[in-house]
């Protein structure tokens, strides 16, 4: 049981961090960013390049991922989403744009980094072993703690800074925020950059554990959507809850259902369908959006 809980917490922390970026972008711009997984992959490859190719410390790689993805996110918002949102009232326009960006980033990643799986050496060696009741490598513990620290930092930023307050106001009511003097365009770009940066940071963190490859983008986006649907799209606390719930469900399912084959995600998807039938807005979302 200790092992199941530890695995669930570790998975939940990384999932929550992925979902946070996606839900932030959705809450600010009402855009479902299908390219979120590709941004995660790009972050992983940037850290890989800095650490494995240039031989620089891991922390430099992580900072580089954050900066590169923030710039990419800001550029995507400024030059792609902003004109489309301004000219088209149809939601499917932004969805198609996001899907196009996902394919574009896949192609760019293939050209720049190739098709192979990449990884960086372990940042901490050794394994914590509590009498085989709980086995957890130290690097996973460190990554889990870093992910939780980043979630806490993000919450603090949203709660206590001027930019955070502006973005929360924007998420609650775009028109009202504008009337109150919030620079909507500036904070939309900042929010998109922050969301992309979070995706890049998780990619950078996990490249030491799982490595990174071109094909991880799509499945990562699907899991992120799953989490924000559980927690409630556009709600920060919902994304965190969704991440930890999915992590825990995966850990429990893989242990208890192993004997019946790979049915964990079948059970998770079936449960989600039933759940959404009763509560379509998710755990913490509001029925009116």
């Amino acid at each position, binding site marked *: 049981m200790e*092992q*199941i809980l530890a*695995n669930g917490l*570790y*998975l939940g922390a*990384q999932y929550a961090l992925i979902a946070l970026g996606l839900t932030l972008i959705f809450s600010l711009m009402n855009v479902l960013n299908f390219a979120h997984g590709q941004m995660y992959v790009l972050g992983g490859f940037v850290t890989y390049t800095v650490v*494995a190719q240039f031989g620089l410390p891991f922390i430099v790689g992580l900072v580089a991922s954050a900066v590169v993805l923030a710039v990419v996110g800001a550029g995507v918002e400024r030059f792609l989403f902003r004109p489309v949102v301004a000219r088209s009232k149809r939601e499917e326009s932004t969805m198609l744009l996001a899907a196009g960006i996902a394919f574009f980033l*896949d192609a760019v990643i*293939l050209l720049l980094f*190739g*098709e*192979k*799986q*990449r*990884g*960086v*050496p*372990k940042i901490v060696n050794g*394994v914590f*072993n509590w009498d*085989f009741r709980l*086995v*957890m*490598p130290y690097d*996973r513990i460190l990554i889990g703690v870093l992910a939780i620290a980043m979630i806490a930092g993000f919450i603090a930023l949203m709660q206590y800074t001027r930019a955070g307050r502006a973005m929360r106001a924007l998420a609650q009511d775009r028109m009202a925020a504008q009337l109150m003097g919030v620079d909507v365009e500036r904070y939309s770009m900042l929010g998109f950059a922050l969301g992309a940066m979070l995706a890049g940071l998780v990619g950078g963190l*996990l490249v030491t*554990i*799982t*490595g990174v*490859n*071109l*094909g*991880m983008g*799509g*499945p*990562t986006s699907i*899991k992120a959507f799953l989490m924000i649907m559980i927690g409630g799209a556009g709600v920060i606390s919902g994304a965190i809850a969704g991440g930890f719930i999915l992590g825990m469900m*995966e*850990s429990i399912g*893989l*242990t208890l259902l*192993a*004997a*019946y*084959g*790979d049915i964990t*995600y079948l059970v998770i998807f079936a449960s989600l369908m039933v759940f959404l039938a009763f509560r379509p807005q998710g755990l913490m979302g509001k029925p009116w959006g």
Partner: protein
Amino acid sequence: MNRRTLLKSTALAAAASLVFFGAASAQNPVLKIGFVGVTSGPAAAWGISNQRSMETRAAWLNELGGVEIDGQKYDVQIVAFDDQKDPKRAIAGMEKMAQEGIHYVVGPNVDDGAAAVRPVAEQNGIMYFPYAFPKELYTAPASNAILGMVANYQSGPAIYKYLMENNGVKKVAFVAANESDPLSQRDGGVEAAKALGLEVVSDSVTYQVDTTDFTPVLLPVLQSQPDLLVLSGVSPANAPQLIRSARELGYTGLISTETAQDATVLQEGAGELANGFISVGGASTPELASDAMREFVDRYTKMFGEYNDESNTKVYALEYILETIKANPAAMNDVEEFKKTMDTFEAPNPFMVGDAKLTYVGTTSFGQKRQVSVPLVVNEFKDGAFQTLFVAQVD
């Protein structure tokens, strides 16, 4: 110069350059060979190594003046199609090859894609070289598919037997991704292990290919305390993570797979934890490689920046196609002639030292010669590189 004169002279210059360059590049007629396989997504490495091997070899042959068939030199052109590991796209790719009049296609890379293209290939007179293992593709009445590598049901028993005799393996556990290829490879492996008298202690655990933490996946497998953990059909992306998780969970037994792996990927993803990992290698070793194989590796690396060990196997399909057509030029546009030639075909193997031959095999597994003969090389990973454990021959 007025606008009309400018337009006229531009059009004339364009037409002249077309005629000039067309004439320059049309010294030899072109022989088109197709590739339909996966070059994007998680399994991209499998198809990309195919495509790049073909492109490298074709560029090399063209540089030497082309391939001589029945006294006529041909430039080899590779026509590639990314099926995205989707059987519907694979069918579309094979139809495109048929529309282009191509009779020889390398790929697809996976079981369902290879099965899906069979009717299109048979109806349009196309011989194809899948890297997929379903026996019904290669056994009569099927006759257009030729297996491009060693199948898991051929390499698996050889590996298990070696480990039983040399490492005293008695108990074996299998874990596979929840996809058609790995699952069928797992079933084949379980059958082979049981036939050899091994005790199969776990064979029901599977995982999603996008799993980011394999600890919960492997826990129940390792609790069954196997001497050998088989990662059935594991992709190069998942192998380092599985090995790392198994070792971090305290597993000290042997780990093997029947798929080809990449030494750099293993080193980056698992480091020294991957030492001792046993896998099927590309069909070459430093001892087996001829000068031509070394030059191929050089040219591939120059063209694409980084070599893939799998290409030691994937260089062969194009060579078999060209050499068989050279042996019977009537096969160029008639695959029935190709099939007739296969039974007796023999040519020097340029990629191996000694008097190794290119021949078609597979009679034992398929009842007819529908497999290219390449050496079965089984490797052990050690400190960032593969070392040859043993070499065997199929059939």
